[in-house]
């Protein structure tokens, strides 16, 4: 499979006036966003703020009610399959099959993505996440951390341009979270793009430089800086929101 790299000045992800309703509840309200190549962007917000919905709209897992979503210049509402080809998605769940081995799981996804050199790719991916010795073990015996590492191998097997992560640190112990943080940093170091949704500012965000605060389906604030800057700003942001509510 060949993935054409987009022109450098074209945003890798672009959302234009995106709205999403679940019944009468508005999940996204006119969201505009542009993400460039090599950015590590984190969506921060309380539970139900709309962070996950944003990622799911980009992955075209949910269809927005209005607006336009582009991934690598492709309109994902019109061409969802071409858009997904360029994305990897790591969620809270691993999307893996517990009765298949680690190798078989990756082999299955390699077939879905119609990849070539499958064996070689899988071995490299397993090596990258440190699971090459567990390749022939069914994953029901894997710890949460091992499953999450295999989930990253699954999501990056097709060498995507963009990695979407939805609360990837939940349920991980400190060591596994630090490892994941390091991988994400190295992933961005290769010129790839990461979009992550989280409400936990304590773990693995050392590589992130752009922070988007989401509240009630809207982008409330944006800032560029280190995770330490973001932590302070986000605490202030949450305090202000609480004051507004009361």
């Amino acid at each position, binding site marked *: 499979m060949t993935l054409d790299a987009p022109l450098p000045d074209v945003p890798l992800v672009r959302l234009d006036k995106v709205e999403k309703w679940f019944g009468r509840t508005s999940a996204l309200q006119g969201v505009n966003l542009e993400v460039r190549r090599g950015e590590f962007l984190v969506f921060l917000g309380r539970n139900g703020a709309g962070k996950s919905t944003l990622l799911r709209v980009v*992955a075209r*897992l*949910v*269809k927005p009610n209005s607006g336009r979503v582009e991934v690598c210049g492709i309109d994902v509402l019109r061409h969802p*399959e*071409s858009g*997904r*080809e360029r*994305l990897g*998605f790591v*969620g809270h*769940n*691993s*999307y*893996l*099959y*517990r*009765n*298949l081995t680690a190798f*078989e799981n990756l082999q*299955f*996804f390699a*077939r*879905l*993505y*119609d990849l070539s050199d499958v064996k070689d790719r899988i071995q490299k991916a397993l090596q990258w996440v440190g699971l090459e010795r567990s390749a022939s073990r*069914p994953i029901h015996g894997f710890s949460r951390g091992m*499953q999450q590492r295999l989930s990253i191998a*699954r999501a990056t097997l097709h060498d995507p341009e963009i990695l979407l992560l939805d609360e990837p640190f939940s349920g991980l112990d400190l060591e596994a979270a630090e490892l994941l943080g390091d991988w994400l940093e190295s992933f961005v170091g290769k010129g790839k793009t990461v979009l992550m949704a989280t409400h936990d500012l304590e773990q693995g965000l050392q590589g992130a430089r752009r922070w988007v605060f989401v509240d009630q389906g809207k982008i409330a604030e944006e800032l560029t800086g280190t995770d330490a800057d973001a932590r302070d700003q986000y605490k202030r942001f949450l305090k202000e929101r609480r004051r507004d509510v009361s």
Partner: protein
Amino acid sequence: MTFLKQAGAIFWKDVLTEFRTKDALTSMLLFGLLVILMFHFAFEPDSMETERFGPGLLWMTFLFAGLLGMNRAFATERENDGLQGLKLAPISWSAIYLGKMLANLCFMLLVEAVILFCFALFFNFNLLPRLGWMCGITLLGTLGFASIGTILAAVSMNTRMSDVMLPILLLPIALPVVIAAVESTAAIFTDPPGEALGFWVKFLVAFNIIFITLPLMMFEYVLEE
């Protein structure tokens, strides 16, 4: 071609998972054999009686055993949210339907082969002269049932009490295929085969064409949130 390869990958994954756990196959097989055994004791198995109630008994057993397997079709996708993983792949979501439908068909045909053998054994009924027709009708009837059952299993997957919801949705819609399968089986149970055989087989073929094409076109909407 890519579409078929992707459907083939999903079929391979479902078959591999099932042969490792044997969850659906075991329950389908046990249920089917128990029904045949119960009816063996409930009726006097002579050839006249078997000709009369045999087709209905066979298809009811196939149907309810199939329902047990159909309920499991998307259960594996619930663990670790596997369906999201499939939806994230750059594939047409119809390939998910085709792969799953073929896997269901494969499991049902395997179980039906054993049930048919036991039926012939317990009811002392010689299936050999009609084996070709029986295989053809079983294949057509099961294909029709699996094609509707798979899409309705996806519809009912996220409902409360999905195990109950699936038969409630499936049985009325599958009624034409059940009638056609029972009638055509009844036609081959008589010697010589009944005149209605041609009509019911054509009906089954037409039904299958419609009910495989429609779900293929509609499955994207079923998976859409």
